[in-house]
């Protein structure tokens, strides 16, 4: 992570990365499908082109993405037992006020606000677009942060909404699901139906033998590795998005130190957030699973964490505060 990038360069960079990752996901799905067609169904060959497998693979990906966008947010909120914030409760009212402030600063409609009854401080945003979005925070977050820190956290979540991260992460999770399912089918196919078909293919296409065989082997390796690579890419996107949300959150409040103080508090309260399940982990401001990975620096953390190391996030924000100072 290059900490000398300013926020606009960072935004541009993140957009490019995101686009590339989405393309790779679609290509992955397509390749798995094409392999089905070529090696099992025989629907793509010299004298036939009926890519049923490809269409099914891409269709499955888009269907699950569409379904997630439609009802994913509700499912996540339900799974965390979130309840709508109550304007008559003073601390909820403060949260509602802070969210109003941030929706004014970002020029977005006010998202729905939920409280998760959990003593561990954490927060997440979900939804399909800025018009249909929700922000949920835990009771522990309300109890442990002051107004300024709460503003930093809400600005971070608002930025996830403004940058369409909520949609992106929902779509990526759905695509990951589709890839997992397909590669699972493909692997089963290798063991069960594969033998007989491969025999028939080798007898009819012996002229294209070695190349077809190499392609088949490559495809099998691809199918086996697809879930792992997909997972790594999803995590890479998630980490980038965390940095970006930190940066654009600071742009909204013009006060990076609020978020720095909040992150410091959130980090020291490292107990896992019990009510947030694995599926929603990438949405949260700090990793709710309390995994050691996200706390460490280095290669493994850069590869496997859903969130960047806290220390790096804080350093990046402090650098921003320093850059901002002359203009204030």
């Amino acid at each position, binding site marked *: 992570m290059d900490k000398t990038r300013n926020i606009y360069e960072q935004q541009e960079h993140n957009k490019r990365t995101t686009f590339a990752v989405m393309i790779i996901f679609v290509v992955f799905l397509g390749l798995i499908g094409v392999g089905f067609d070529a090696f099992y169904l025989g629907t793509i060959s010299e004298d036939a082109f009926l890519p049923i497998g490809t269409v099914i693979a891409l269709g499955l990906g888009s269907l699950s993405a569409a379904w997630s966008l439609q009802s994913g947010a509700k499912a996540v909120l339900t799974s965390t037992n979130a309840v709508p914030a109550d304007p008559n409760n003073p601390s909820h009212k403060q949260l509602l006020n802070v969210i109003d402030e941030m929706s004014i600063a970002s020029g977005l409609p006010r998202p729905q606000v939920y409280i998760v009854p959990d003593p561990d401080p954490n927060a997440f945003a979900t939804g399909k677009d800025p018009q249909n979005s929700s922000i949920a925070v835990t009771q522990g977050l309300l109890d442990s942060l002051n107004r300024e820190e709460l503003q930093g956290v809400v600005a971070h979540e608002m930025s996830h909404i403004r940058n369409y991260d909520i949609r992106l992460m929902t779509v990526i999770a759905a695509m990951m699901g589709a890839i997992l399912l397909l590669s699972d089918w493909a692997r089963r196919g290798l063991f069960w139906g594969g033998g007989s078909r491969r025999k028939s293919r080798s007898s009819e296409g012996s002229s294209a033998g070695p190349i077809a065989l190499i392609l088949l082997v490559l495809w099998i390796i691809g199918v086996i590795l697809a879930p792992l690579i997909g997972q790594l890419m999803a995590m890479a996107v998630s980490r980038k998005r965390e940095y970006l949300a930190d940066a654009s959150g600071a742009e909204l409040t*013009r*006060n990076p130190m609020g978020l720095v103080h909040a992150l410091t508090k959130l980090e020291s309260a490292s107990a896992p957030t019990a009510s947030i399940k694995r599926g929603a982990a990438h949405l949260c401001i700090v990793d709710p699973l309390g995994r050691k990975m996200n706390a460490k620096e280095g290669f493994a953390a850069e590869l496997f964490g859903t969130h960047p190391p806290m220390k790096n996030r804080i350093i990046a924000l*402090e650098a921003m505060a320093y850059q901002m*100072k002359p203009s*204030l």
Partner: protein
Amino acid sequence: MILFYVLLAAAMVLLLWIVVKYNGLIMLRNQALNGWKQIDVQLKRRHDLIPNLVQTVKGQMEFEQDTLQKVIQARNAAISAKGIADSAVKEDMLSGALNKLFALVENYPTLRSNENVKQLQEELTSTENKISFARQFYNDIATKFNIAQQVFPANIIAAMFNFKTSELFEIKVDAEREVPNVDLSLKK
């Protein structure tokens, strides 16, 4: 004949360009106007909240009549302010008077722990934040609108249809905001 078609095509492209640019400017102008209205909404909310606050603390703070008077005066001056620059100055004075009042409230334990006062204080703090965020947002949009009018060749269209640049809020508003503490030690 060919020349005629070339000219016709050029004219069409030019017309299309004018339409697109004009619509873009109109869109930005409406956004800026909308941002401006948002500031007004929040200012009005603040003006409405102040009498409530003064009523609530008046009984306990009889020795601070002077401060209370100043808040009321500043509020009335702010309501009757005309134009962006004047309104900005008056609103800043009101913010100053309010901050002084809040500082004094800290001296009265009964007021400090009063739920009503706490709620009003939270509402006024939030409204004050909303005002400055609304100004921040308005400034961003208005700057975009102004730049769109001033760059060549769009400035020709802006002049043709008599677009006016939007007035911006002074940076002073930001300068008032707390300067963040910078810790350069980069804690390890």
